[in-house]
């Protein structure tokens, strides 16, 4: 990208160029310098020099020379060192130099009195001297920029709308759309309609909550009574409403001890579920109902299910223990969340949810700074920790600075951005309780506000969080942050960071960043035009090159950009668990845990969840996305185990209800043309069912699989006949009892028809080989939206 294009790309800010005889106004009242803008490519050269040589060390100045800093009344006042303010700060410095000449050097080399002291090293003096020369004579600027050609959207080929529809369904719900559904998604309009339908499914929102938990990690409390235990017993005296008053659980209404314990655990679990999941349920609710997405912060309510509403002291339609049962369709189902308010609590969406506040805790000395950091990261696209990536001057006399977080440049670079919002969180204590501070906020800290210059009026203090939420949602950064949140949710990747000078692959990074940013800006515009309907973001991202990209133009060599095109990644354990079930009709779990989601192998931390790269939202918060040898073994183990009992179970079912073998039976041997054809047709079916591939029965791919089946059958049958192999399945791989009634299938009337036990011809085991072959395939275990 040439320098003029760069200016245009970033140029939503007014350009304060001061060149030649352009007019200038010196505002005597506030002693700041303003100017009339003109554009000049040589000035862009100067800005590049500033970015590469001055900007990274500006923190030594910004500490004082910023709104709220000690030098806030001088003629040189910078904005906070966030990436958004890079251009603004350059112009501020440039205009100061234009007005005052070499004063900036004189102030910092000891020539002229400077309250901040002589901060410049010899290297600084050299760089600033160069900058001054360039500012005065831009035409002398030596272009040190990295020339980056912009990439146009036409450089990326997309998959078809129908393929996008299929991939969107698989990624979000784990279930492929039917042929009829796909037939409606052949055009862009059809795709839009299909996505609208997709976003009405419960499974879609299960996925959405899973992905947002990857960001907010509040499921840390969705276990045992962890969420309930965060509730203050004074604020919420009914938090364990199901417990009873005399510790004998009589209120559960069960006389039998075992039944009572079962009911107690069920009710406790559903209550904790309601408490712990409230933030994620709010997000899903706002998206589903197409509300303004800002409501995730401004909502003056919480989401509660009937059970948690009792804990919060807000009963739902007189819900009582008598209404508790396992009917998930009941109005009192644990998944039936609704908007409810706690009297006296100034709700502000997730910001005031105890789960969110405890997940990002504070202490007496931290004073909400951690929360402020997270809130700005999630909702204002501002990475405060990133501000500290600049090397600080460790030899300066830091210890003598009183109140360093307010006065020491090494500290204020972050604290000036962090502390005002920390003050806005003042009414919520370390336990996430609403506790307005009797004596107000700490006087030695930055005044509470949205920024140093945007302070909160004292009249707003009682509703400080709501005030903050309104500010955040109104800020332009919120819309961009929202796009990035959904990008992360959909792809599992963080948005590309703006490259910094010194990055190893600066040109490629810049090109890729610019490309992605342009797409995000476009989506942001549509999002804003829709009154912040989050479904617009989701649909646009799905239709974008980041999800639907198939390939890039030959000759475009940018690995960073290429890696962001399309979505190819290892399926996470939670989604793989669903996919296995949707494909095979059986979960990867012991038989007695089929209905217990948390005990499935890929869902259980004691089994494979953590080993397979999953998180626990507590100590393990980042997924492993690069396959390692342990994970590879888990894949093979799954493929082998799922070829055991689930294969037999499918044969047990009637042909019309089978997922795997609708065209063959357990005894069909490849003895003649007709039977071979049937077997091949079933292989074609398996390719579609398991791998989503369409083949004909005479294709090379089907032939390879058929040979796997056939050779295993021939070899196995021979060994059975010779006595070298058993004539029956392993016990655990057989179906000896009716899965529903538990009837023993060895009974005479069912022995020959329903029993799946003997395998004298080795047919079942040959099919098991095919299933292992397919379930261990790259295309089953990875999502790849480029196909």
């Amino acid at each position, binding site marked *: 990208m040439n320098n003029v294009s760069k200016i245009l790309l970033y140029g939503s800010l007014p350009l304060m160029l001061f060149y030649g005889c352009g007019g200038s106004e010196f505002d005597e009242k506030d002693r700041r310098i303003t100017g009339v803008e003109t554009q000049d490519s040589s000035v862009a050269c100067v800005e590049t020099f500033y970015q590469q040589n001055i900007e990274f060390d500006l923190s030594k100045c910004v500490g004082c020379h910023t709104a709220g800093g000690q030098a806030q009344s001088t003629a040189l006042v910078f904005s906070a060192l966030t990436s958004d303010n890079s251009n603004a700060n350059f112009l501020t410095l440039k205009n100061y130099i234009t007005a005052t000449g070499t004063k900036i050097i004189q102030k910092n080399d000891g020539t002229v009195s400077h309250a901040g002291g002589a901060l410049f090293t010899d290297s600084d003096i050299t760089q600033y001297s160069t900058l001054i020369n360039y500012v005065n004579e831009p035409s002398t600027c030596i272009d040190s920029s990295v020339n980056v050609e912009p990439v146009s959207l036409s450089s990326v080929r997309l998959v078809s709308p129908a393929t996008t529809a299929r991939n969107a369904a698989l990624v979000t719900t784990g279930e492929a759309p039917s042929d009829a559904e796909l037939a409606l998604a052949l055009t862009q309009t059809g795709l839009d309609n299909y996505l609208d339908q997709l976003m009405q499914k419960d499974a879609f929102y299960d996925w959405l909550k899973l992905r947002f938990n990857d960001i907010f990690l509040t499921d840390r409390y969705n276990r045992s009574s962890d969420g309930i235990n965060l509730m203050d017993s004074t604020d919420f005296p009914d938090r364990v409403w199901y417990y009873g008053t005399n510790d004998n659980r009589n209120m559960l209404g069960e006389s039998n001890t075992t039944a009572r314990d079962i009911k107690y655990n069920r009710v406790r679990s559903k209550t904790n579920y309601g408490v712990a999941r409230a933030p994620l349920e709010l997000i899903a609710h706002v998206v589903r109902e197409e509300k303004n997405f800002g409501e995730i912060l401004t909502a003056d309510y919480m989401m509660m299910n009937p059970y948690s509403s009792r804990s919060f002291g807000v009963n739902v339609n007189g819900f009582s223990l008598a209404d508790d049962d396992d009917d998930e369709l009941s109005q009192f189902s644990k998944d039936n969340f609704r908007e409810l308010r706690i009297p006296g609590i100034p709700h502000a969406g997730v910001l005031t949810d105890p789960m969110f506040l405890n997940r990002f805790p504070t202490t007496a000395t931290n004073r909400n700074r951690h929360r402020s950091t997270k809130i700005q990261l999630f909702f204002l696209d501002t990475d405060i920790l990133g501000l500290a990536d600049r090397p600080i001057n460790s030899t300066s006399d830091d210890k003598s600075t009183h109140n360093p977080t307010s006065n020491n440049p090494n500290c204020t670079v972050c604290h000036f951005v962090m502390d005002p919002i920390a003050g806005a969180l003042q009414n919520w204590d370390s336990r996430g309780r609403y506790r307005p501070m009797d004596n107000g906020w700490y006087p030695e800290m930055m005044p509470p506000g949205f920024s140093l210059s945007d302070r909160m009026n004292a009249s707003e203090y009682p509703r400080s969080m709501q005030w903050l939420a309104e500010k955040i949602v109104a800020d332009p950064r919120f819309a961009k942050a929202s796009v990035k949140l959904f990008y992360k949710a959909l792809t599992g990747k963080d948005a590309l960071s703006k490259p910094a000078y010194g*990055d190893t692959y600066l040109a490629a990074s810049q090109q890729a960043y610019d490309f992605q940013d342009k797409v995000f800006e476009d989506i942001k515009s549509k999002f804003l035009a829709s009154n912040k309907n989050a479904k617009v973001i989701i649909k646009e991202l799905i239709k974008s090159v980041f999800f639907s990209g198939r390939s890039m133009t030959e000759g475009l060599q940018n690995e960073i950009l290429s890696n962001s095109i399309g979505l190819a990644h290892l399926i996470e354990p939670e989604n793989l668990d669903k996919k296995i079930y949707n494909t095979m009709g059986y979960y990867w779990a012991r038989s007695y845990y089929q209905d217990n989601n948390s005990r499935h192998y890929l869902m259980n931390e004691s089994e494979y969840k953590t080993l397979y790269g999953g998180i626990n939202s507590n100590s393990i918060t980042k997924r492993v996305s690069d396959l390692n040898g342990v994970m590879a073994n888990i894949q093979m183990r799954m493929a082998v185990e799922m070829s055991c009992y689930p294969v037999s179970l499918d044969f047990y079912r009637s042909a019309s209800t089978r997922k795997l073998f609708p065209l063959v039976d357990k005894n069909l041997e490849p003895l003649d043309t007709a039977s071979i054809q049937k077997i091949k047709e079933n292989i074609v079916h398996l390719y579609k069912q398991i791998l989503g591939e369409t083949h004909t029965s005479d294709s090379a791919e089907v032939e390879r699989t058929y040979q796997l089946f056939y050779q*295993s059958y021939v070899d*196995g049958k021979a060994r059975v006949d010779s006595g070298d192999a058993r004539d029956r399945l392993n016990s655990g791989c057989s179906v000896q009892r009716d899965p529903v009634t538990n009837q023993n299938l060895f009974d005479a009337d069912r022995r020959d028809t329903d029993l799946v036990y003997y395998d004298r011809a080795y047919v079942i085991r040959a099919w098991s080989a095919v299933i292992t072959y397919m379930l261990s395939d*790259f295309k089953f275990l990875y999502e790849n939206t480029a196909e």
Partner: protein
Amino acid sequence: MFRRDFLKYISVAGAALLLPKMALGATGAPYTGPLWIFVNAGGGWDPTSLCDPKGYAEVLDNQNQLVMEDNPMNKSFRTVDIATSASGSNIKFAPLMESEDDIANNRYAFRTFFDKYGKDLLVINGIDMQTNGHSAGSRYTWSGRLSEGYPSFSALLAGIALPASPMSFITSGGYDFTDGVVAGTRLGNINAIQRISYVNRYSYNANTNVETPFHDQATYDRIMQARDERFTDLYNRQSLRSVKELMLKFKQAHSGSNELKKLIEYLPTDINTHPDRNNAVFAQGRFAMAGYKAGLTVSVNITTGGFDTHGNHDNSHIPRLSGLLKGLDLLQQEAVNQGISDRVVFIVGSDFGRTPRYNNGNGKDHWPITSMMMMGAGITGNRVIGASTPEHDAIKVNPSNLALDANGINITPAHIHKALRRLAGIESEQLITQYYPISGVEDLPIFT
């Protein structure tokens, strides 16, 4: 052998272009180097309460009684009581966890560790982290680069030595960015690991040593062959570079699947019952030692947290330091028991240091000057490099001889990593020179 399979794919499929970093590391030779154990005290530890000790002075009050000075550096021990290792006269340490109450409660005294290992320890004090940020500090400590982009040193080691092993680089968190050089492995339930080490095992009779498979061996081999053929077809038809890379990593991960059985052979039998199994440093390190003995593991990232003590510093921080030292001691004993103590390297560090003196909450805040401790194969002990002032500012050193020198330089993690690469013998590896050079800093004779 899994390395040969991977190398085959590297050369035949042109994969070197797509996974250049892994290709550069795939030498194919068995790993004969040491086990590298990196222990991260997450949150910013306080060296002045450990290996760069600074206590409090006593002064006379107006009643002529000796009392703690106002605003002391540390409140838990006197400067005059700063101890010297019984086995390493150059090693000074904070004499903590030695009170009657500590002894009665069987807490691990700092003296126990330093007396035992003083002769082996290299302490580097006065390290200038140039940051007070957690992310930047952690990254700088463990990669040698302040800004983003470089993999952790532990990942680099594993990526160069054993990229195709199923568990070359074990990580429990901390800074474990790999940049695709190697895949990091997490550890979990031993029973689960045992099950997946034998993927095709249906049952096993220990009495008769008879294993019953799911698929008979001939069928299983046939499945594997069919998978290989299909993989090659799919790979050759794939047009997106990013997907081809994923496919290669998939192939590489599967090439080592049989090797996991060796881990089971070397796991200590008391892995689930050892009385100290809850010491995170010890537990994670034991697993890595088993992996190393099995020829699978090169490095491990061990993280133990809770050191970011902005409040109530002494009561929170010092016990954690004690637990960390105990874990190191246990691990070193384990290494002796396993017969590999001469082939283990310990590197211990943190995000940064903590402020001298205390804040209003009796805590300590972030401070850019910190220390590291190291011991093991190739490291000469009983040495302290670098120093800090009584106010815990870094003291400059002469880059030629590391003597304290006001006209010298501050030691930074970049210097340390440059030296570590030389210690590991990887400084000239193409992976390093081409992708992750450390330039613009002096070569300090830290390990020579």
